[in-house]
């Protein structure tokens, strides 16, 4: 209480508090500040800053070569960034790499394996690499949950692609990390396996794990993620909750079915038409500025006899295509 302003201790305390806010914010599972990475002429990441809160199911989307895997590699310490800071559960991935990596499980995009060992041996070794002893109970549970129990003693080479991918998930989880990063985990995985995989990942999320997902299947991200970042050309072009992203500006389509073949559309709507086939008209509507009733009145005024009307919300895919397309056009 008696510490006067301007004393060295006061400054030290203030500095520590600021440092904690910047890099050790306890509610953030992952924190990126001004992260940049360049490969020759390619700017893979350009001043990326984002926070992922503990317990979030976070989607990281973007077209091929957008920088998603570079970002994940930087987070996992597989590459060094040119600028910026990254932390996992408050631990800087460079200066406090042991704590950062202990808290992080990564399922790599490529199917990779050590061909010398069985599934159980692979998991036992991986567990030991993280310093976890006597982990057989958790390994058995992972094998059970990922439908690998009957393959526990099978050599990795003899597994199918889907099974190998499940082993990768088990390897990422074997040290019970708080943050799990799934880099396109369902690529090439059949529907049944995909569903069982998501059931397990959802369970992990319910149990408090932070999940970061990159996927090309946008419907998966739409179904699973609380918050989504869209990354393109190394920049974050959107970072919002799924609901906000879906409601973003444009948003919807109007489907109109007439009792007759639609020949013409009023001039003011012609550039919004996305489909005109027989008696069906589909057009973009702007949620914030358009009135559906007014549009319908104008269509009726143009001698259209309307039989059926439906408003279709944008899917995440529509938003994604629009946002990444807009950036292409810039």
């Amino acid at each position, binding site marked *: 209480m008696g510490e006067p302003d301007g004393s060295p201790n006061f400054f030290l305390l203030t500095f520590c508090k600021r440092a904690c806010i910047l890099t050790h914010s306890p509610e953030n599972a992952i924190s990126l500040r001004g992260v940049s990475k360049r490969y020759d002429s390619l700017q893979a990441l350009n001043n990326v800053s984002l926070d992922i809160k503990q317990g979030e199911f976070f989607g990281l989307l973007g077209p091929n070569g957008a920088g998603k895997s570079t970002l994940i590699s930087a987070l*996992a310490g597989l590459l060094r960034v040119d600028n910026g800071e990254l932390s996992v559960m408050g631990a800087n991935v460079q200066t406090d790499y042991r704590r950062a990596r202990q808290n*992080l499980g*990564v399922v790599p995009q490529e199917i990779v394996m050590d061909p010398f*060992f069985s599934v159980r041996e692979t998991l036992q*070794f991986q567990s030991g690499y993280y310093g976890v002893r006597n982990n057989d109970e958790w390994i058995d549970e992972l094998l059970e949950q990922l439908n690998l129990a009957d393959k526990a003693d099978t050599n990795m080479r003899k597994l199918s692609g889907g099974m190998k991918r499940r082993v990768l998930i088990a390897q990422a989880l074997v040290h019970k990390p708080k943050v799990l990063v799934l880099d396109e985990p369902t690529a090439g995985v059949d529907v049944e396996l995909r569903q069982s995989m998501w059931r397990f990942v959802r369970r992990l999320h319910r149990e408090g794990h932070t999940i970061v997902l990159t996927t090309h299947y946008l419907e998966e991200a739409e179904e699973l993620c609380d918050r989504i970042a869209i990354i393109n050309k190394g920049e974050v072009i959107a970072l919002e909750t799924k609901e906000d992203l879906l409601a973003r500006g444009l948003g919807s389509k109007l489907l109109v079915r007439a009792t007759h073949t639609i020949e013409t559309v009023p001039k003011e709507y012609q550039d919004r038409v996305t489909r005109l086939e027989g008696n069906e008209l589909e057009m973009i509507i702007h949620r914030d500025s358009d009135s559906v009733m007014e549009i319908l009145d104008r269509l009726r005024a143009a001698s259209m006899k309307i039989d059926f009307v439906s408003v279709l919300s944008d899917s995440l895919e529509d938003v994604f295509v629009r946002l990444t397309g807009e950036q292409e056009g810039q």
Partner: protein
Amino acid sequence: MNWFACYTLFKKEIARWVKVWLQTVLAPVVTALLYLFVFGHVLEGRVEIFPGVSYTQFLVPGLLMMTVIQNAFANTSSSLIQSKVMGSIVFILLPPFSALEMFLAYVGAAVARGLAVGFGVFLLAVFYAHVPIDNFFIVLTFAVLGSYTMGAMGLIAGMWAEKFDQIAAFQSFLIVPLTFLSGVFYSIKSLPPFWYEMSKWNPFFYMIDGFRYGFFGQSDQPVLVSFAAMLAAASVLTLVCVMMLKRGYKLRDA
């Protein structure tokens, strides 16, 4: 230092070569024995290098050490290049290993393989020639130092190489010539003065010469000189290796 993590990686590296023991242990033992039979048969009785030591006896420690160091090199270099090419190196790079933990695990496993293969050669060679051991401690010290040094060199080669043929080139153009020219089959004292002096710059010579001293109590150079040379080589390579691992040289994208 996370000793358990280090021990697990060491255990895994051992398991890797044990699982393919035909290729990693038996094959080099057979090759070394073939050298022994052929050269021993041709040169026995024609050459006496140390007084009271037959050529076949002289040959055994040289071949033994050659096998030890070549296999120690092969262990680390092949493990690293395989996992780099196949992508499974990610399982080693993701966990929180320190550079020293990785180094000790890889090199420890290389020493273990070198000693296993060396023991195999010795076990079969004694049926062919009487091989005296003057000082077992010196034999063991040089075997461990030699395989340690070559394990470290293999680690450097494995980090540097991006393709299998680069490792093969390292082996064919550096390791094999330096081994063959280190006095495995002859005493460097029998060489012309220029090549005698050149041989003294070959670190492999000190591995072989010191190791041989442990068997016969005789060598081309004083054993302490060989020990000091080996210790210096091992220290420098340890330093280089740990620094490269710390930087993640060609492992983690810079």
